[in-house]
């Protein structure tokens, strides 16, 4: 599995509300777990997902340790024009992953 | 087709000859009082009688029992009257979860057939069924009570 999977319709009608689903592979280490030797496993989570549509932010999520491993986030946006819907996940320890999808609106 | 005599009835079953008697009893004949506990003749939950003798049916291929009288827990009572072991089990409230008790009762009924007044040593030597709930003291009391009945 690649780090990120996104599910964006390839085509949509203008003004159509489209559903976007995202999944990114990440342990979302809470900072509350213990190792085999009883030591605390340091927190290591994705803290943010930003979605832009032709460069304009249309959705943003701030995430905390209570988001389950391999964060799945679904939301919607209105198909306004053809172009690119892009996603950026950022988090602890310099984590950053991007993905994008082309959409044809017409 | 294999011909079986079970609880006084004649039955025909269409199974592989090496199928354990336990699974023929449970799955072909629908008599689920006889239990699966281990499959290797260790626990005794599957005990039935072959011509009155206790056997662990999980380790007996069905082909080996043709011509023998099979009795399961469902066939132990005489019509409407409980077998004296069942009666003693009721009086002494032996079962906890009860899963092993059909096998236990069958083993004890066979013991009492062979030794109507078993000593504790006879019980210890003969009754080797596993009961994880641990009802052994009630089992022993009930065996002695059944022997007196």
């Amino acid at each position, binding site marked *: 599995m690649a780090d990120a999977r996104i599910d964006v319709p390839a085509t949509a009608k203008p003004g159509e509300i489209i559903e976007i689903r995202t999944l990114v592979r990440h342990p979302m280490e809470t900072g509350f777990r213990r190792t085999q030797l009883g030591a605390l496993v340091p927190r290591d989570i994705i803290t943010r997902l930003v979605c832009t549509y032709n460069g304009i932010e249309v959705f943003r999520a701030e995430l905390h340790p209570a988001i389950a491993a391999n964060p799945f986030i679904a939301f919607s946006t209105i198909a306004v024009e053809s172009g690119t819907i892009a996603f950026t996940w950022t988090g602890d320890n310099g984590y950053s992953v991007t993905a994008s999808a082309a959409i044809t609106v017409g | 087709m294999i011909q079986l005599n079970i609880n006084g009835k004649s039955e025909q079953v269409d199974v592989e000859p090496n199928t354990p008697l336990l*699974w023929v009893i449970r799955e072909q004949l629908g008599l689920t*009082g006889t239990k699966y506990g281990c499959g290797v003749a260790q626990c005794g939950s599957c005990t039935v009688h072959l011509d009155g003798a206790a056997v662990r049916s999980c380790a007996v291929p069905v082909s080996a029992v043709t011509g023998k009288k099979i009795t399961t827990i469902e066939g132990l009572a005489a019509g409407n009257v409980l077998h004296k072991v069942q009666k003693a089990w009721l009086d002494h409230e032996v079962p906890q979860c*009860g899963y092993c008790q059909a096998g236990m009762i069958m083993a004890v009924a066979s013991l009492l057939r062979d030794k109507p007044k078993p000593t504790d040593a006879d019980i210890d030597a003969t009754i080797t069924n596993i009961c994880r709930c641990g009802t*052994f003291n009630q089992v*022993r009391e009930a065996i002695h009570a059944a022997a007196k009945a």
Partner: protein
Amino acid sequence: MNSDNPNLSRRFFIIGSAAVGSGLALGLNIPFGPGIVRAADGSPEVTAWVVIRPDDTVVIRIARSEMGQGTLTGLAQMVAEELECDWSKVTTEYPTPGQSVARKRVWGNFSTGGSRGIRDSHDYVRRGGAAARTMLIQAAAEAWRVPAAECSAANSVITHQPSGRTTTFGKVAEAASRITPPKDVALKDPKDWKIIGKPVRRLDTLDKLTGKQVYCADLKLPGMLNATIKECPVFGGKVKSFDAAKVAGMKGVKKVVQVGDTAVAVVADTWWQAKTALDALPIVWDEGENAKVSSASIAEILKAGLDAPQAFIGNQNGDAKAAIAGAAKKVEAVYAYPYLNHATMEPMNATARYTADRCEVWCPTQNGEAAFAVTLAASGLPADKCEVYKIHLGGGFGRRGAFHDYVTQAVRIAKQMPGIPVKLLWTREEDMAQGRYHPVTQCKLVGAFDAGNNLTGLHMRISGQSILAAVRPQALQNGRDPAQFQGVAPSGEFEFGYGVPNLLIDHAMRNPHVPPGFWRGVNINQNAIYIECFMDELAQAAGQDPLEFRRKLMGKHPKHLAVLNAVAEKAGWGKPAPQGVFRGLAQMKAFNSFVAACAEISVSGGNKVTVHRIVCATDPGYAVNRAQIERQIGGSFVYGLSALFEQECTVKNGRIEQQNFNDYSSMRIAQMPKVEAIIMPSGGFWGGVGEPTICVAAPAVLNAYFAATGKRIRSFPLKNHGITMV
């Protein structure tokens, strides 16, 4: 109940099968929505706990699970006591978790573990009975047009005192069910109890004697197929591949399915066909890193924890380390306790039927709500499209309480065969390989004495596996697992019974990959061995009698001391034992009950142990049914002593080595000691029954073994030392 009727009356056959039949009918046919006030057969529900049929039969609803421990009967006694019904007319039924969700959890918690079945629900189930009685009386009074205060109920009969008129519960139940339940009801004073506290006969015995009792492994649904499963034997491993074509043509085989990432199942007409095919199925596992782990490597990790600088503190007063450093005399010992499997007689199993808009599960569970939760998760359907039916359990002991892996599997299999009910039944070998094991620990104890042989300090260092860290890490208390200190805690349900001037009890957490679970008694099993055997070691070092040594430390723990004194007195401690017989003691507070045992054993040939007698005392606060408490004590000893003498789960190449009862044995009747129970409820609190006494058998026997042989055994099971139980 007529359960002492030896004859197979008509009732025997009809009620026996009806109990199962109606349960299934409820499951299959009858929607049971919110607000309904009728039972499945149309009889009026007076309160959620009580249904009364026109023939005066009282159906008491039981949310907790009966698995042999007698809670079904005990809870029914609670309701019946306040209801004032005729006990001989009582029967029971399980409400379903789906009904519970729809009715906003009207029956409370379904969880049956931690010896909490009765002690956590006694109050509200009694109120359910009392409310029903009030409503029945009011219904009769309204019919007679008399004040309810002039009426009373006893034995299912309502009497108008001034006129002497009577009616029965069955005649007024319909009217009572329409009355608004009272907001508050008074409960009886325990001294007025007539049914609670009496050794009434169990409600569930007869069918277990005739083969009629349907356990979940016996369930049969129309069109049902049978399945059995193999999960990767290395915990954490996955399925790499399997060759379904190799078995697809075998007789009866319907489908080979992968179940999640980790398991493969065969579905066939019969279970035996499924098992035969699964045995023949080539499966390649991706075993992962854990395949390198062995019991020896785990033991090394735990051993390092015994002296590790960092540990979580569970109980502390004074300065134990300073007391030990300045001691005139030090005593030190290291103990170890292995992994254990529950080995319920009925292997794990569940039956599921899935369609796109409904998922139903029949399963043996200690917590119907938990089974329902995994049904929702595995099916992906909402709560109003799922239902779980609890079918009688062939043992639980903790395996079927917290973890419903077997239910998840059954739903995942059924999802791959929509519309067809599939019964998944594990082999015993699978049950041994896929447990939720009693966790592994080691323990180092150091005691300090002053020049006058007074115990001045004690350090108990536990090193080993935390259940909480594995299953609910977010609930750790800044890393500390409070359950690790059961029996040695500073206060509460598991309060340490000794006053030591300088005390430190701490835990170096070490978490191997083997999945831990809640095994009857949980951590009191090993903690009792550690502390109670070491108390004997300390007494010996001080040259004092083990009972007297303990008594001196128990001044502030009178209830702990009372049960210890009771067993000592009854066993004749201090008086000569029969020739060749030796005694050992132990005490503990567990699950809010105070328990103690005195074991009498003899040893022949240096290693053949006969346990002749165990005198056991318990103070559970209130004793609901002494006959059942006695059976739980005896049964808990079988569970605990089987482990002590014969059981361990060892790890090789990341997997459990034991496969069946041939290499994971369990006590037989020949090994069973006489058990003398002293049930001494002191009132004012509610303690558990099913688990507490398990922990005192093993240390009492070990202390007696030392008395007999002069040898301290500190690692288990005893078979590893060539010691057998005869």
